[in-house]
């Protein structure tokens, strides 16, 4: 039993490692091979003299072979392996737009801000989604249930950025909440508490937007999952055993019903990233999403490449964590 679990985890870790490697390679070629080659693009500037272009090409190693060096000498003397080498040292290059800023620094700051936004939203939406989904399933067919279903349907149809704008509109024009950024610019705080309150006020609307969007989906899945589980034979057994309804739900239904939710959270990480990109754009929240969008608008390719890599690897790693949690929740998985 134990060894089955260990083998399962090992297999998943290997798959994640391979995926990360493929992501890294994919990321490299995405930016080299497609028509808009950023390195070449930058050198197309007509103001540059041919000598200057040649010098720059030499400096950025653009004359080296792209993938492997087949022109004699060291096989590894190529742009691809130079990229891998730099990456291994955490070197993601230098931003075009923010002068002399290493991409890794920009990403680090942005990542922390994104986690501040995404983590509370995820926790709130999972807890509320599981709770409401459970209740809707238990009270199947009642008004509560119909309301929950309609809410999920609307949330699914509502683009995240639009919900964000609507909340922003209400918050800014009628409630008086801050509309952009992480803190009030130029504000001086008397106490740390005041500073925290200011950050919380800025976080309120973006978190609410993201949480509402995720909530709809979690609730829908939880509801159908609970209805499925509650019609299983072992629930009839538990009822025949004279267990109380609350015990049947907490000890027999919940764990089994959570399994699809766990899978959904894993599959949804990409969806969460997409939500974060939109919410950060609407609320000018200085996270990874906003960094990505501004990198696109400024054609800041090193930052774009780095941000994409970081987002993709985060999703792969988070996926791995979720799969391991799953194997712990459902002992059958690791033995297959």
């Amino acid at each position, binding site marked *: 039993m134990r060894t089955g679990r260990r083998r399962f985890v090992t297999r998943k870790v290997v798959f994640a490692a391979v995926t990360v490697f*493929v*992501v890294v390679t994919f990321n490299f070629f*995405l930016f080299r091979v497609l*028509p*808009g080659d*950023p390195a070449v693009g930058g050198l197309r500037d007509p103001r540059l003299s041919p000598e200057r272009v040649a010098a720059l090409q030499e400096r950025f190693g653009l004359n080296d072979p792209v993938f492997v060096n087949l022109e004699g000498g060291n096989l590894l003397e190529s742009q691809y392996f130079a990229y891998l080498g730099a990456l291994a040292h955490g070197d993601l290059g230098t931003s075009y737009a923010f002068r002399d800023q290493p991409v890794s620094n920009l990403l680090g700051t942005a990542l922390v801000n994104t986690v501040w936004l995404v983590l509370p939203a995820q926790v709130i939406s999972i807890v509320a989604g599981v709770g409401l989904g459970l209740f809707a*399933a238990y009270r*199947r*067919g009642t008004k509560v249930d119909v309301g929950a279903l309609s809410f999920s*349907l*609307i949330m*699914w*149809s*509502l*683009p*995240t*950025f*639009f919900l964000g*704008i*609507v909340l*922003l*509109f209400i918050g800014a*024009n009628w409630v008086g909440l801050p509309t952009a950024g992480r803190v009030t610019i130029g504000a001086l705080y008397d106490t740390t508490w005041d500073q925290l309150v200011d950050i919380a006020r800025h976080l309120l609307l973006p978190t609410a937007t993201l949480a509402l969007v995720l909530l709809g989906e979690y609730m829908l899945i939880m509801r*159908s999952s609970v*209805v*499925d589980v509650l*019609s*299983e*034979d*072992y*629930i*009839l*057994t538990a*009822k*025949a*055993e*004279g*267990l*109380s309804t609350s015990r049947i739900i907490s*000890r027999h239904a919940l*764990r089994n019903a959570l399994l699809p939710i766990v899978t959904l959270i894993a599959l949804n*990480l*990409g969806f969460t990233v*997409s939500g974060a*990109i*939109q919410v950060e*754009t*609407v609320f000018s929240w200085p996270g990874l999403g906003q960094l*990505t*969008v501004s990198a*696109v*608008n400024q054609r800041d390719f090193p930052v*774009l490449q780095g941000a*994409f890599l970081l*987002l*993709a690897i985060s*999703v792969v790693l988070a*996926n791995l964590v979720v799969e391991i949690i799953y194997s712990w929740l459902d*002992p059958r998985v690791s*033995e297959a």
Partner: protein
Amino acid sequence: MSDRPRGFRGFRRHRLGMIGLAMLGIAVVVAFVAPLLAPYDPYANVTITIADIFQPPSGSHLLGTDDGAKDVLSALIYGARVSLIVGFAGAIISMLVGGTMGLIAGYRAGWLGQVLMRITDFFLVIPDLALLIVLVAIVGQSLRNIILAIGLLGWTGTARLVRSQTLSVRERKFVLRAKAMGAGDWYMLRRHVIPQVLPLMLANTVLVVSLAIISESTLAFLGLGDPRLISWGQMLNLGFTRGAVSAGAWWAIIPPGLAIVWVVLSVTLIGTALEDLLNPKLTRHHLEPEEIVATSPSGAQPVEDVLLDVRDLTVAFEGEQGPLIAVENVSFEVGRGRVVGIVGESGCGKTTTVLGALRLLAPGGKIVDGQVLLDGLDLSRMEPDELRRLRWDRVAIVFQGAMNALNPVRTIGSQIVEVIRTHDGDITKDTARARAGDLLEMVGIPRRRVRAHPHELSGGMRQRAMIALALACEPDLIIADEPTTALDVMTQAQILELLEDLQEQLGVSMVVVTHDLGVVNDACDDVVVMYGGRVAEKGPVARVFREPQHPYTRLLLDAFPTIEDPGRPLVSIPGAPPRLSDLPPGCRFAPRCPSAFERCHEELPPLYVTRSGEASCFLLAEPAFAGDEGV
């Protein structure tokens, strides 16, 4: 299940689906006749002054003007074109790519399939909006590129779905047969696989359309749409970045947003309807509130030495055309220490009778009449809390097919400990655990298996664990519902022997529900033969089996092999038990009965007292028996 794929028949009766279709229809018409509907041409160049910007709705501009002083309504109408084109063109690309990948991966499950699935897995973990942004940023923001990028990113879900469906179709008998007869790959795909996969794929495409529409509007909102085209996302982008929020110009923001919601909602409703039609989902469950029988009890006195007394039990299920009677006027008694067998073909109401007696009916079922006395206590009208305390403590059940009757994610031991502690609040965890081990040993499972999960035990072992669970609270009555079904013959014999031994050892009363007359013959004292939800015959096993009075009992016995007379030819009963929605007016068995006469088809026969017990058959109403009528 039939081999033919379920189509989308019945869509017209799906209300939400039809609403979605109507909503989508309106959007499509608007997109087509946009130039006729729009009061202004949003693509025309106009000279503007500051005063024209963000004008609130008025007679000349029904939805006001935007940041470029253009009519919002006209832009809204033209915007439908981009959304719908991107949505449908993108979805078609996704469907073609994903469908092809999925078909190949499922049909050629070897290395090619593996490689394709790895590629799909890879794209599944890449955050798609991020990749979409990168792609469009690199290849340029034209409508064609956006459609291609959205189409090429939306295929993973379709590929997974088509693959799993193809895999399951491939294993079906008729496909294997066609293959064995030498059908070529292309023929197989065209004639057998694709028709099976297509409906599901269509339902999925609808989902892909809604994703594509949302992706397009998101891209446009982020400033990555085709700058030459007016789309709803673009309108939101311009309104948002050019100060509609601070200007309080809700009319520049709300209409395009609602337009997106309108189209996505319409498509989602259609998709939900299609999915409902393809695989109708379960909608009921075991914890729904139950209805307690409404009629007043007959007030009959409990009988000495009778542990379970079922009187005139009638059970109905909700049907589409009103209630369906599944069990009607069933009465039988279980004496202390006796074993009663309930026997009959599948669908005759055996299990419904025992589950009904304990108020454990499937959702939608309820007792409409009758009484169930356990040691004089009326289970049928008891308060739910009181009933719960009594369950398992006094009457336990061994369910059929123990795989699903035990919770798959909890250990056997924890499930036994849980029920012991539920009914005995004083017992410590350790004592309960020790008792769980004892119980497992009692049924022939090594006690260390308390830590095993159900899937780690063989079928026979699981059934033993189920029996141990049933014994946990030392009940007075055990109901075994098809305890040996789905086990191999050797294991069947062992489980049966175990049940017999335990019954003798503990002196517990038992009800055994089975379609196996051998089980009744070996293990039971009394037998109740059921047909069409009613009692056909009942009495002591020895007498009923020697002198069956009801033609149905006789035919059942003829259809069953005996060791005493192995040379006797076996005769099967032609036909099948009646459906609940289509019960014959007279005796339920009359349509299949070789001895039926006119009266049998018109009236329900009462129970007549016979030499070997009681039986419900007009043949017994002959002059010789006159006066014995009714019980």
